[in-house]
């Protein structure tokens, strides 16, 4: 039982904090969000230099052997900075999937490049009308020559516009399988768009996209447990990001309560607002506890334990984030609802975190169902 970061972790945290302060001030971020890429390629390079792109991968593939707690730390800092780079989709989600499920050859081909900042990935799994359910895959994989042909459509693929390669799920007679597909492959069409929080995503169609047999990740028909595990990693990371944002919002709101004057006194003198602020602090502390739980348990070899902790954390953190986000806006009054201040941007990101890879009700349901097995 130990709730402390190691020396190395503290050093990394400090480095990231300074990076965010220097390279990710609010006005810089606004400009990035409006740029063509929607994020900073120099920042991505810096991430590579700092080692966080290689953090969660085994040493033998150029990684740093990081665990869920290391990712917690990084994601919390990226959350505070509202960083726009596709760290979650490339490193946590796709990198984690490759690490946990790919062949050695695939890992060698991907992980070092990914850690060096030379490769970006996106997971093309969810489909139109599929909501948050993992098994709603209609994209077909059919035999074609020595390889396969993919046909279908994918929806709201996070990080897709910048991705060099995609991990695509498709169904054949064996079930659902995962394939590594080049983003420039003929027959693959993208409709990119910004997301509500300033990131980038895309819908895409696959029309006879050819892949060779070596593109298969894991065993044929085995995609679902692989995707579920990767998404658990992503959701644990989102919890950490949310906690970073909530902490930042609390600091900003507290400062506002102390400086904004109405009726001749700082509005923080009003007890109703004081208690609201206390509620926000309590919610954030509790959310931090749950994010910690998820960060530790997501590495568990026991899938049930992993699923239970991540579902619990995502449901709870999303509920807490809703309270903190809504009240941070409310306590800022008019200043909370304008584009010009960072409060609304934190709020939008918090909201979208809650809706990504399963909303609070979805994860509450996942958790609730585990009670039947008790």
């Amino acid at each position, binding site marked *: 039982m130990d709730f402390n970061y190691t020396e190395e972790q503290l050093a990394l945290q400090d480095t990231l904090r300074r990076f965010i302060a220097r390279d990710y001030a609010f006005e810089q971020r606004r400009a990035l969000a409006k740029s063509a890429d929607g994020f900073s390629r120099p920042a991505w390079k810096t991430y590579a230099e700092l080692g966080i792109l290689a953090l969660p991968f085994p040493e033998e593939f150029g990684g740093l052997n990081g665990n869920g707690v290391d990712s917690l730390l990084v994601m919390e800092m990226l959350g505070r900075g509202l960083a726009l780079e596709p760290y979650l989709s490339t490193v946590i989600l796709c990198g984690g999937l490759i690490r946990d499920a790919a062949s050695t050859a695939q890992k060698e081909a991907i992980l070092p490049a990914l850690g060096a900042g030379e490769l970006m990935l996106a997971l093309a799994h*969810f489909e*139109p*009308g599929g*909501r*948050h*359910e993992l098994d*709603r895959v209609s994209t077909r994989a059919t035999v074609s020559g020595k390889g396969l042909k993919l046909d279908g*459509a994918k*929806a*709201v693929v*996070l990080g897709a516009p910048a991705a060099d390669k995609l991990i695509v799920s498709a169904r054949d007679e064996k079930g659902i399988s995962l394939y590594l597909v080049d983003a420039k492959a003929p027959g693959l*069409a993208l*409709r990119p*768009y*910004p*997301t*509500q*929080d300033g990131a980038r*995503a895309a*819908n*895409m*169609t696959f029309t006879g996209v050819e892949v060779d047999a070596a593109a298969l990740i894991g065993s044929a028909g085995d995609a679902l447990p692989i995707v579920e595990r990767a998404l658990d990693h992503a959701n644990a990371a989102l919890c950490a990001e949310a906690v970073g944002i909530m902490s930042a919002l609390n600091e900003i709101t507290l400062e506002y309560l102390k400086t904004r*004057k*109405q*009726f*001749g006194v700082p*509005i923080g003198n*009003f007890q*109703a*607002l004081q208690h609201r602020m206390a509620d926000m602090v309590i919610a954030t502390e509790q959310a931090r506890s749950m994010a910690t739980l998820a960060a530790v348990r997501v590495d568990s070899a026991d899938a049930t334990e992993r699923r239970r902790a991540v579902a619990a954390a995502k449901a709870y953190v999303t509920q807490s984030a809703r309270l903190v986000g*809504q009240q941070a*806006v*409310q306590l800022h*009054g*008019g200043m*909370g*609802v*304008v*584009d*010009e201040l960072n409060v*609304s*941007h934190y*709020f*939008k990101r918090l*909201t*979208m975190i809650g*809706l*990504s890879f399963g*909303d609070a*009700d979805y994860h*509450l*349901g996942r958790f609730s169902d585990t009670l039947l097995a008790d």
Partner: protein
Amino acid sequence: MDLNFTAEQRQFREEVRGFLRDKLPADLSRKVLGGKRMEKDDFVRWQKILHQQGWGAISWPAEFGGPGWNAIQQHIFEEECADAGAPMQLPFGLKMVAPVIMAYGSPAQQQRFLPRIVDGSDWWCQGYSEPGSGSDLASLKTRAVREGDHYVINGQKTWNTLGQHADWIFCLVRTSTEGRQQAGISFLLIDMKSPGVSVRPIIMMDGEHEINEVWFEDVKVPVENLIGEENKGWTYAKFLLGHERTGIAGVGRSKRELKKLKQIASVETANGRPLIEDQRFRDRIAQVELELMALEITHLRVVSAESAGEGKKGAPGPEASILKIKGSEIQQMLTELKMQALGPYALPYIEDGLNADWSGEPMLQAYGDHAAPLSGQYFNVRKTTIYGGSNEIQKNIISQMILGL
């Protein structure tokens, strides 16, 4: 005690429906029901149509051109307009400055301004809040200095809604710094075309331009544009704020949006079945519907009591605060559920999706015609618990005015 409408009231409702069927332009209702971006002309066109029918200002007394409807009739009218997707009648002229002009303006002011409000000629906006004066409105600093037959205005207003289209702005200005803050405030009508007036957009978190700052730099305003007496503006302002809050219950609009939510939940799917069959989500809809059922009756109780007698000309009582709090909360819950209903499709930000002529693209097909505006709506209506006197201020009013705490 009878919750049924009378035969006359039912007939009245039919009459309103018939009118809406005949006269509400289809392109306008499509925009409203689809959550599309509204242009100035959309509002003006509809106001002119209503005016032609004699229904341009339903809450006005007959002597000023109102149709002479009682509160229940007004409720029915607003409910039917909302349901049919009629553009909202903006309150700034009709429900905010007009009652003040009627109650405290001179006959000359009444004749000059009121007809141009009801016929859609003049677009009004509000100049109340300032950067340093939000909930504490009385601390406002915009100065009006009398020079001969003019006031000279210097200062800055904010949280001005749709002032970019406005012909006129009604302003609270400071004409005296003596005594209590409230005692030095005057109520002034200012031509937006006056030299020295500038409007600067404030972009809201949904990315839309709905709100402005309005700056006054040596703006000359004729003394005849003063409402009532100098330094009595606070009285008129409070009168106006009371009027502002009643409309905010928004029962008709929320009923329409609840219908829309149910419709979305019948189209979106969960586990391959209509989302509404998912018990967790259905329960959430049910819970909002309960709130709205209760609010509708609370609203009717308040409205009936007003229509029954006293206080008709005076400002609505603190019951209005209950309507404002619940009305805004329900609006927020509804937009939140609509967004949640979209699942991952809540994430895309398709700016063009708010254009009237946008109806999806092949690659966004499953995104559906309904999805584009919904997350933005959720972000947009965070304002409703803040503006018109924040819900915290409303609770102060309840505990002080109703409860005597």
